[in-house]
């Protein structure tokens, strides 16, 4: 598609809540509103990605907050760079390494989806970056992979949405929502 003609992606107005719950599970959960089997690049299945609506019940154990626009049950197939903080690791969103990773995201070319993952009001749980391109080339350099381990995943349709590029230059979260959500 010629540059400048790519359609505008709805921003905050496109969703009613800033975030959903997200988890990477070995088994398919039966109470999630969106699930998808996740595969390695070589085709081996690693588990299931799952998302739950915030406010539709108790928070699923171990789930992390993700920007609501990142999840779409009608989404197209995608490659995902999934960075997850180890369970016992507690790194603040205010950590300079996290802020620098956000700056690198803002400096580079945007992907179809990018959302940090929220463990609690002040702690980062990882990052979810995805592209609907046929190859994962755009995910080669994930700045959050310099902080935590990352896994490159392939999912079929039915899970990954699309988000507008972050406006920048803000690196602060709005009322604890996953960055780069940008509304109070």
């Amino acid at each position: 598609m010629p540059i400048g003609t790519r359609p505008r992606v709805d921003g905050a107005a496109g969703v009613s809540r800033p975030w959903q719950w997200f988890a990477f599970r070995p088994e398919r959960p039966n109470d999630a509103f969106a699930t998808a089997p996740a595969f390695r690049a070589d085709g081996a299945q690693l588990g299931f990605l799952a998302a739950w609506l915030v406010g539709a019940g108790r928070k699923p154990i171990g789930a992390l907050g993700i920007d609501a626009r990142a999840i779409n049950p009608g989404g197209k197939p995608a490659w995902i760079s999934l960075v997850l903080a180890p369970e016992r690791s507690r790194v603040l969103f205010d950590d300079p390494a996290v802020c620098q990773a956000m700056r690198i995201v803002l400096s580079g070319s945007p992907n179809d989806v990018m959302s940090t993952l929220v463990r609690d009001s002040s702690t980062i749980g990882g990052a979810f970056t995805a592209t609907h391109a046929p190859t994962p080339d755009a995910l080669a350099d994930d700045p959050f992979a310099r902080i935590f381990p990352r896994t490159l995943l392939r999912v079929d349709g039915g899970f990954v949405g699309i988000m507008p590029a972050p406006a920048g230059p803000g690196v602060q979260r709005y009322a604890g929502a996953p960055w780069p959500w940008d509304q109070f």
Partner: protein
Amino acid sequence: MVVRSSSMPLEYLTCEQDSYQQANAGCDGLPLRGRGTSPRPFRPLFDLPLPGWAALSTPRLVAGDSIVDFELPDHNGNRRRLSELVGGDPAILQFYRGFWCPKDQAHFRGLVQLQDQVEVAYTRMISLSVDAPEVEAAFRAGIGARWTFLSDASREIQVQLGLLETTDTVHRPYIPTVLTLFPNLKIHTAYNGYWFWGRPTNAELTADLRAITRAIRADWDAPAR
């Protein structure tokens, strides 16, 4: 609030225009007359040939007005609407000539410094020129900017806003202009940066952003409990 754009009489603008041509000949694509060892002599305001300059496009953006909610491609080619880029925050909207302008380069160096404060202050920055998206992307990366640049290569918005710098017939750029905006796109202050010193300092922008933030944040005074 200070209005620096539309309150300027045409005669004053005309005088600036004439001096500007002498001082900047060449770098902005203007004729080289008056450059080097034989500058044009100074002429008082009342001697200037007004009819020749009467078509000068003066900024129509004034404090208290709202700017149109336009939609343009960003530096990556994605269509972006101004209101979505501003979101619910105070914003700086900067119109600049182009990557080639030394004044813009100097101004951007200051804005990139300010960016380190803006990024933690729930505030937006947007820059806009007639450069193509890929040119803006390269310029943005080169100066280290992390905010969104918009491309008005078709000049549709430039015409709509009356910000065509008519004296540069080569680039036909935007008249350098900086607006500080409320979230509803109402203009707090308009700075006419045609002359470099008309552009806001970072201290002036900080003062504007403080005033806007104070006006829109109900909890500006920290809650007592």
